[in-house]
């Protein structure tokens, strides 16, 4: 089992005719992902990498029965693309786009709040269930099918960790990049709840970073309700306050979001925190052994 997506997921790529959209459509197809449709308004009727292109998500849903969307639409149009997918009945929306204005995301979050929709991202690498499906931009070949889940606010940092896990002989059940923006569709807790029920997942690596309080909230949840081993890492221990560290969401402001507070909260909750990135794999091996 995997969470949210699997072998049978039928993907629609929004922004499929763009540079990134077409490149990653190819990559996904090569990985074995069922990309069944693409959408670019005004370009319906074409094909990209053999995938039929539609003018609207609605048509893609009707004709190709897609149920997961992967969005590569540029920032000014990305909020519309998410709402479009949600209105058309897509159940899992993966938004790769970086740079969406935060007020657009305020509306998106409220728009989908009462819909049966899971939004992953934006500003994220996507979701992969190794050996089954890859929806996003992560390099597929570093992953191995296995029993460790990864939830992360960062992209390349996740690849680094996955690579380490794979080398340590720890395959992955599902890896999710939840995104580096201040407002994102799903939190650590949303996915922890799913991994709790996922029989394939035996441990979770949680990769946080400075900014916000998502890690503190996750710590509280894990302590109370999450029974599987968790290894956490927080990036940005040396980041100065008030500066945005690349990600729109990675900023210490108003006294909130410091790495030290996050690490303290996680440790207080009894979670193994790897202070050194290089030790995540071995830490997981160690605590898994103990369980």
């Amino acid at each position: 089992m995997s969470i949210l997506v699997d072998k049978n997921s039928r993907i629609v790529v929004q922004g499929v005719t763009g540079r990134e959209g077409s490149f990653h459509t190819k990559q996904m197809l090569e990985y074995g992902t069922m990309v069944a449709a693409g959408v670019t308004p005004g370009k319906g009727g074409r094909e990209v990498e053999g995938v039929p292109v539609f003018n609207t998500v609605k048509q893609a849903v009707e004709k190709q029965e897609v149920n997961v969307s992967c969005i590569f639409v540029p920032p000014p149009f990305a909020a519309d693309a998410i709402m479009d997918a949600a209105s058309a009945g897509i159940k899992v929306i993966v938004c790769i786009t970086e740079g969406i204005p935060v007020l657009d995301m305020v509306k998106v979050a409220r728009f989908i709040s009462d819909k049966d929709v899971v939004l992953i991202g934006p500003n994220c690498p996507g979701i992969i269930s190794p050996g089954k499906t890859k929806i996003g931009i992560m390099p597929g070949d570093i992953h191995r099918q296995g029993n460790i889940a990864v939830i992360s606010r960062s992209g390349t940092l996740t690849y680094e960790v996955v690579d380490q896990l794979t080398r340590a002989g720890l395959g992955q059940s599902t890896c999710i990049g939840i995104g580096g923006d201040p407002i994102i569709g799903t939190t650590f807790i949303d996915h922890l709840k799913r991994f709790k029920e996922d029989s394939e997942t035996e441990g979770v690596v949680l990769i946080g970073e400075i900014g916000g309080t998502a890690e503190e909230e996750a710590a509280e949840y894990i302590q109370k309700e999450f029974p599987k081993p968790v290894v956490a890492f927080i990036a940005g221990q040396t980041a100065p306050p008030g500066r945005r560290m690349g990600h729109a969401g990675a900023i210490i402001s108003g006294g909130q979001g410091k790495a030290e507070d996050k690490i303290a909260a996680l440790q207080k909750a009894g979670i193994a925190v790897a202070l050194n990135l290089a030790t995540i794999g071995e830490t997981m091996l160690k605590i898994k052994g103990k369980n």
Partner: protein
Amino acid sequence: MKLHEYQAKEIFLKSGLPVPNGQLVTTAEQATRAAQIIKGAPWVIKAQVHAGGRGKAGGVKLAHYPYEVVTETEALLGNPLVTKQTGPEGVIVNQVLIEEGIEIDREYYLSMVIDRSTANPTMIFSTAGGMDIEEVAAKTPEVIFKEHVDPVAGWMPHHARNLLYCSEPPPDQTTIAGLMAVMSNVYKLFMTLDCSLIEINPLVTTREGRAVALDAKVIIDSNAFFRQKELLELDDPREKDPLELMAEKYQLNYIRLDGNVGCMVNGAGLAMATMDVIKMAGAAPANFLDVGGGASEAMIEKGVEIILKDKRVKAILINIFGGILRCDILAKGLVAAAKKKGIGVPLIVRLEGTNVAEGREILEEAQLKFLVAKDMAEAAKLVAKQVSGAG
């Protein structure tokens, strides 16, 4: 993007948000004239710099006589101001705002931000105006009040009432009406200008029930500039680090720090983690630099150039986990930079991911002098060793 106080107040004024009468000056002559036009005494003389902590650092002065307006302005203009948010070298004051003094009855704190967990614009209001809000939050959280705004209906009168009737006794009806108008205007501005922050500290009321924004801090969401083009013109490059300004031009995410290890990484999270391992290995990063996924050869070249312009840099660590960014592109950029200007400091390279073999080959063929690290931990150790030897 931060606005200057005077820019924020000009916007406030246009949107019906009351601010003191004031004038921006850049010379002593202008200050003399301003003291004649603006009602006083007293006058308030405020250095226009982006760095916070201006008040405590002597960047805000009170003048009781017109000549004082001029002398205080002169004392600020052209001189560096050192606040807790600047380096020890401080920032040069280029502009000064001269304002009428307002007779204050009560002081409030008011701000609007995005609350991440509720995903809503949120107004923060406090009766402890004029103080450092983080300190207030730590010591007396019970005088801080919040209202989350549902974007469905926007700011509604009941939000304002919930905040304003929190103190006993509440302000009189005239004052309440004035403060309600301020709140609703702040929300409107926040939404129309794509703000990440509007802060008025203090927001004061006078005995006649007038509400006035004595200070104004506005930050614009830089992701929204595609639809806020006129605001981009308010950007003041003089307030920025010249290297950061240069990086901005090439769409590189560069932040200057205090150490001596230059770094270049792809991905914000990995870049932060790289800084962290450098520190853990006993050295200190000179910068944060995320070249991003879409970096071209030219961008890599520029990145190296910017890192090297920082004279404190004693070694460079390059850490790339190739995903979208291919290792061969990185290598080509690196070689181009070396050919143009030379590198001149030890170079530690750690490459992994897409096209890693091609990348290494390019570096070797170029006969570039560099050390290879097999992973991040080793890279950090190597670089720390280099700078400890150099330093």
